């Protein structure tokens, strides 16, 4: 083994080491991109609209299963009236559960899986500053979450437009919305969903730094989301429900009213930001003090 001149710097670090250069966004992006779960999740986001499209093409009847579920059934009925409607329908069917699971997967698995593989301690010994490690991991998780949302919407819009054409967005209560305005509204829906999903992201991330079991973090976040959804169904709880994280989950339907109803969306965004800030803050607070023993 050759002898090297040993360099050192003021802070005692090895030559070439800068805390701000460790585990960059790009590096973490590559680390995560190589994982099956990332590839599968993103792939499924492309696949789902195509599956729905095929179901519409070859399945009997139209979108709704005959059960009357209000807005759901109404939007399913008009899902085939254009690419915009199809994209809206794809969002509707995925918003309440699929996207929640995907976001929980990206954000809940990221730190916990490193802990379970044992690679977390080697990253910390690089040393990647803990705050930086969380920052890079969170940004990459959120990036992939957003990618899922965009891929789903984009694929649905593209596939729907190719199959059903480029028509105004038909709605049950707001009449026809011209394509230009409808695209903006669709973007608004995607943006609102992205903001509300911060709650799941925050919860999953908090669980991720608190446990070594990736499944626990992902499952825990989804479980609590479902629990909140169930509690929200119990009208007897009255005004307590407005503080539930999922209470304003459907507020984006206000964007397909005429004129646009944004009050609930604003409240939903406030709730999402507040919960997100709380969960992410707790995650940071916990991880900065944590004894990493895995």
């Amino acid at each position, binding site marked *: 083994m050759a002898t090297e001149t040993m360099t050192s710097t003021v802070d005692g670090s*090895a030559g070439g080491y800068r805390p701000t*250069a460790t585990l960059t966004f790009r590096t973490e992006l590559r680390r995560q991109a190589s994982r099956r779960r990332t590839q599968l999740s993103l792939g499924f986001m492309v696949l789902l609209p195509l599956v729905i499209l095929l179901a519409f093409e070859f399945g009997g009847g139209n979108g709704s299963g005959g059960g009357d579920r209000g807005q759901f059934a109404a939007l399913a009925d008009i899902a085939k009236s254009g690419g915009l409607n199809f994209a809206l329908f794809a969002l509707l069917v995925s918003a309440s559960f699929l996207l929640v699971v995907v976001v929980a997967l990206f954000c809940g698995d990221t730190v916990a899986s490193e802990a379970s593989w044992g690679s977390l301690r080697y990253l910390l010994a690089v040393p990647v500053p803990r705050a930086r490690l969380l920052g890079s991991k969170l940004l990459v998780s959120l990036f992939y979450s957003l990618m899922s949302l965009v891929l789903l919407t984009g694929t649905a819009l593209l596939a729907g437009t190719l199959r059903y054409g480029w028509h105004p967005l038909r709605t049950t209560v707001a009449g026809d919305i011209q394509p230009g305005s409808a695209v903006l509204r669709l973007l608004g829906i995607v943006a609102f969903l992205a903001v509300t999903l911060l709650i799941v992201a925050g919860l999953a991330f908090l669980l991720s730094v608190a446990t070594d079991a990736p499944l626990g973090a992902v499952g825990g976040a989804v479980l609590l989301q479902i629990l909140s959804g169930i509690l929200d169904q119990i009208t007897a709880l009255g005004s307590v429900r407005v503080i539930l994280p999922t209470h304003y989950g459907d507020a984006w*339907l206000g964007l397909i009213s005429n004129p646009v109803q944004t009050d609930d969306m604003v409240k939903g965004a406030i709730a999402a930001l507040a919960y997100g800030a709380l969960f992410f803050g707790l995650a940071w607070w916990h991880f900065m003090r944590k004894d990493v023993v895995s």
Partner: protein
Amino acid sequence: MPTALSARLRRALPRPRLTRRRTVAGAVVVAVLVGAVSWAAWPSSPGYRVTSQTITVLTGPDGTTPVSLDTSYYRPDSASAGHPAAAVLLAHGFGGTKDDVASDAKDLASRGYAVLAWTAEGFGRSGGQIHLDSPDWEVKDGQRLIDWLAARPEVRKDGPNDPRVAVVGASYGGGLALMLAGYDRRVDAIVPQITWNDLGNAFLPDATGAGASSGVFKKAWAGIFFTGGAVPTAVPGAGGTGPIPGAGSAGAVPAGADPSCGRFAADLCAAYLSIATTGRATPDQLALLERSSPASILNRIHAPTLLIQGQADSLFPLSEADANARGIAANGTPVRVDWFTGGHDGGTGPQSDQDRNRYLTVQWLDHYLLGKGGTPSNSFTYSRLAGIDANTDSVVALGYSVSGYPGLSGQSSTAVPVAGPPRPAANPPNGTPAAISTVPGLGGGGLASATGGAAQDVPGQHADFYSTPLKSTVDVVGTPSVQVRAANPTGEAVLFVKLYDVDPHSGATLPDGLVAPVHLTGLPASLADARPVTVTLPGIVHQFQAGHLLRVTVATSDQAYLSPPAPTVYQLSVAGGVRLPTVHSAPIASPDLIWRWILVGLAALLAIGIVVAILIGRRRHRHADHSVRADLADVPLVISGLRKEYGDGFVAVSKVDFTVRRGQVVGLLGPNGAGKTTSLRVLMGLTKPTDGDIYVFGHRLVPGAPVLSRLGALVEGPGFLPHLSGLANLQLYWRATGRPLADARLEEALDIAGLGDAVHRRIKTYSHGMKQRLAIAQAMLGLPELLVLDEPTDGLDPPQIAEMRRVLRRYATDGRAVLVSSHLLAEVEQTCTHVVVVHRGTVVADGPVDDIVGDSPSVQFDVSDSAMATEVLNRSGARSVSGEGNGTLIADLDGADRADVVAELVRAGVGVNRVVPRRRLEDAFLSLVGGDTKASGER
């Protein structure tokens, strides 16, 4: 290893120990919870007291008939003779009782008004008969109640027997408010809601303006009204809606009364039966209704009037409020008009409507009774159904405001041509089957009734005339009008004109389900001779969107109205276009607007918070303690007084001190659980020490300290991304350090790992030993000056172990240092230059291996005769001899030559099977650790 496992488990599953900190935190949480629950559950003082009593009033045409009225008086706690309160008379709707307005009464009482609610005569527990707000009866009752209020010391007075009082009520109660204000000058303000102007016009409407004498009988509503069936009685803005137990119906008929009249006064009952039978009202009957109609006394109303009318109201449509508004305003009396989306068909409307109506009512009363607040503007406010709130599944209404009341014909108008060839339409015999426009009194604000979704026309019985698709969206506020031409040999026709909004996709909607009934007379037999008649359609607030079509439908029957029984065929056509009234309105800002600012504020706050946190983090890093202890600057590692106590109180390391110098390979030796791994964890910055310091090249080591970059480590086994190849793992790891790739010395590291082509295989497929070698290679990436390896030979086969020893020894030769932990004595002895023995969390021995390992004076003998051998050994100068049974003796020869001692034994005739010299480290290790091989965790 059960002992180590249990220790780890204990750490992983912390015992819930009641520390002081936890007790305090728990107490705070419990206190907050208890506080919140009590705050929510504690009965708060309502601020008023309710007295229910029967007040007997002298009423009737000559004011001598005693009638007992069931009343509730809500006296605010703030009111007293010294500080008298303004009063509000709260009247209920038709078929209801004082209990229907209880929530409104409580709301007003908690705002400091003395509220008197009563059950009108003929209803509930009150005595008397129903006279439909007759000036002789119900109005007189109201005047006597004003007298009653005037006698209350806590009610504010404007003069002797003149209390400061407002009358508020909906429907039947609204009619009373108008009538009472007309007959009694003491009334200071009124808020009549969803009520009538002229009962004749309400029940016998004619959309050509011909008047009630030739109107079309509104049979469905009249029936409901008369029998006191399900009537929405709630005051908009507060109470609920719902079916009211029949008050005028047979169920409440007093003994001996006419079962066909219930509690109705005989004259009204007779008039109803006559009108309902013939569909026509005689002048006497119209005069009777006229007495119960504010229309006749509007010029006497001087109390400022807030008129609230519902759009979904086929009983008292917007035109009733319009007539009231114009009549009262003509006196110079302040009038304000508000339209909301509910009504007798639509209920209380969505929450936004209820909130606006309540706000307007309180603002009106506060100003005109208390003088609080500025004069309410005379702007006209209305709301329009916009869609559905997905969260509550209720309709959404948007509020708009127009400066000044524009009336029903709007401020401007748009003419939309409708066309179509003349069409015949059949009048069905006895009006059956009939078209359905709205279901009267559906109540509850059902969307179907609100949007007219239930409208149905009977084929062959109507004529449709369409417009072309609208080029731009038209917001109609007011009464559209259209000219209709009709011909029939009988010279007469009863027709129902409707204006549909046709969505090319989803079909036609009849706004609010409203129709305009017309009774035409003097018709020619041929359409060519027919004169166009202007039909004023019902007042609506509706948005006709661009691309939609207008459809004017002229139908011959409607199930809500009485139409001629004789079958005939009308010739129908529409002349010209539909005039759509519009207004110049501004949206009313939603009170929820505040949330947008909160959102903006929150987002800004979070953005600032994140930036500040990053800046603080950087600053803290820059200003971190970068001082170097000069005396240790060249010493790779100094650990002094290290102590690590876990959160559950378990002490993993109680006191560890040692030093690793350049060129040394230091072995950290100890049994499982001695604290080796915990020490290394602290050294890697994974856990924080409870006490003590670690210096690496003179820099104090804290978690994440930059000096860690000069340290390579393998602790607690390898940690790789299982889905990547070994090579990719090493490359990604190095990339994560952010250091130049050239510094990695990847080739040399791979050489040490010796994995060959296996580095291109995924980690999943690796054996334990392969992973271990790769992990050592990873630790050596960049040739760190201090290499820390935890059990490095774990899983390696003997040739690899031998190779690893050579590598480690060579690694330390050029000024680098290596720290190796192991629980295997032989490994440390053969690999290391120095050794540190740890046991139970403390260092028990420390020094160069040669010093410690050198031959020990102890020798183990396996002999044929233990007793004889012991004797011989003692004789030849052994310091101590101990037997281990089975012919094995351990003797401390104290410097005597082993060969001499063996010769001595043989001479004495003892058979020597084996002579094994013992070594110092082993002695030291075993005597230190003794028979106690328990992990430190078991202490």
